[in-house]
């Protein structure tokens, strides 16, 4: 579906340098690495939010993309209004039922009239995920989507992500610090170090028998 070959520099520092990374529909990719390894930069460039030097080639056309950044933002309005943002008046009427259902799935149904600024960090993440799933995305990019959630909320969120995946079969790219989450969700793992792909392959192989010392060290520290 999409192949990315880009570099990104901030001043003299190269934060990302990847070549020929492919993402296909019907696959879930976990992008992992230590802080500053380029994971969020890769996610943002793939989402088109920031530009890098290089090219992003789409097999057919640019896919319908949903992007959840690392720091989720809740707009100063009710949860329902947050869910319906960007839609025309006519679309809003039809979308309202879907919005209610998604809020319920994420355990936010009772707070639908509450101002989203009052949400906790974990609740904001749930809202951001729910908001993304209002659209039928072909490429879904989630940067640490469950970082601030408790264990129960993570389980619920992952179930909803998988339900979405099973229904639409998009390419899902999840940036995560958690090898356990990668094991649960991902088909493939991409491990970045200092902006470069250190190792990649099927999640089962890469996480069970990592070839790279850096990945081994990462897995021993992060479980």
């Amino acid at each position, binding site marked *: 579906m999409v192949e990315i070959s880009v570099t990104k520099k901030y001043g003299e520092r190269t934060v990302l340098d990847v070549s020929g990374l492919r993402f296909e529909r019907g696959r879930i990719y976990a992008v992992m690495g230590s802080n500053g390894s380029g994971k969020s930069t890769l996610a*943002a460039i793939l989402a088109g939010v920031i530009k890098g030097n290089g090219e992003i080639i789409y097999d057919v056309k640019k896919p319908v993309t949903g992007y959840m950044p690392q720091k989720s933002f809740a707009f100063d309005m009710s949860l329902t209004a947050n869910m319906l943002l960007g839609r025309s008046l006519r679309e809003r009427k039809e979308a309202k039922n879907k919005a209610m259902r998604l809020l319920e799935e994420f355990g936010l149904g009772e707070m639908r009239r509450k101002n989203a600024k009052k949400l906790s960090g974990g609740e904001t993440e749930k809202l951001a995920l729910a908001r993304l799933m209002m659209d039928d995305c072909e490429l879904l990019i989630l940067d640490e989507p469950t970082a601030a959630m408790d264990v129960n909320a993570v389980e619920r969120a992952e179930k909803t992500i998988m339900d979405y995946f099973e229904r639409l079969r998009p390419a899902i790219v999840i940036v995560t610090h958690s090898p356990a989450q990668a094991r649960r969700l991902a088909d493939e793992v991409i491990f970045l170090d200092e902006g470069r792909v250190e190792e990649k392959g099927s999640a089962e192989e890469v996480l069970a028998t990592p070839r790279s010392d850096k990945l081994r060290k990462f897995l021993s520290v992060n479980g």
Partner: protein
Amino acid sequence: MWSNVTAAFEKAFALMGEGNTLLNEIVATTMEMCVQSSLYAMIIGVPIGALVGVARFPGRRAVVLIMRTLMGLPAVAVGILVYLLFSGTGPFGKLGLMYSVELMVIAQVILITPVVAGFTETAVAPAYDAMRDTAAGMGLNKAKIALLAVNETKYQLVATYLFAFSRSIAEVGAVQIVGGNILHKTRVMTTAIALNYNMGQFSLALALGIILMLIVLGLNVVASALQAGLKKRNG
């Protein structure tokens, strides 16, 4: 000095209590001018400030610098410029607006719009930085993002309007030049204060000043209630 101040307060309350017709007329003209000029400045200045706040383009810093410099436009200089433009020999002389409330409004809009735009940009820019990635990830266009950024800063907008109104009601240089301080037509609170000072009627001048401040106080009370209401409604 204190006797003048005391006399001023007594005079102020006496004037308000007796329902002085001339005072009422001056206050009405002042409010007509201030409400219009502050509203027009908001209508023009908020979109400009919001768009500059969310746009990222080469030379943006220079635009922001110019905008903030224009916040310090000298009122008398603006008055003279507007006078030259709208006087009988000026390019807009045929409109016949000299010494009218409309021209006073035009002069004040020129003065206050950069202030509104500057305050809006200062409020919107950090709000935009916080929401940028999320909004871009949702595929929202720049205009929608600017609207959302303004929504994030609505409490600051109330304060911006208060400042715009206060600047308008306290301004004397430009309105004196283009309005002429004509009795029953363009005399407003500040030009009346200046006139009474020039006539040596300090107590009356101070009294008018006190009344002006009470008007501004009343507006601030309403604005505070509005802000509190907004916060309560948003839970």
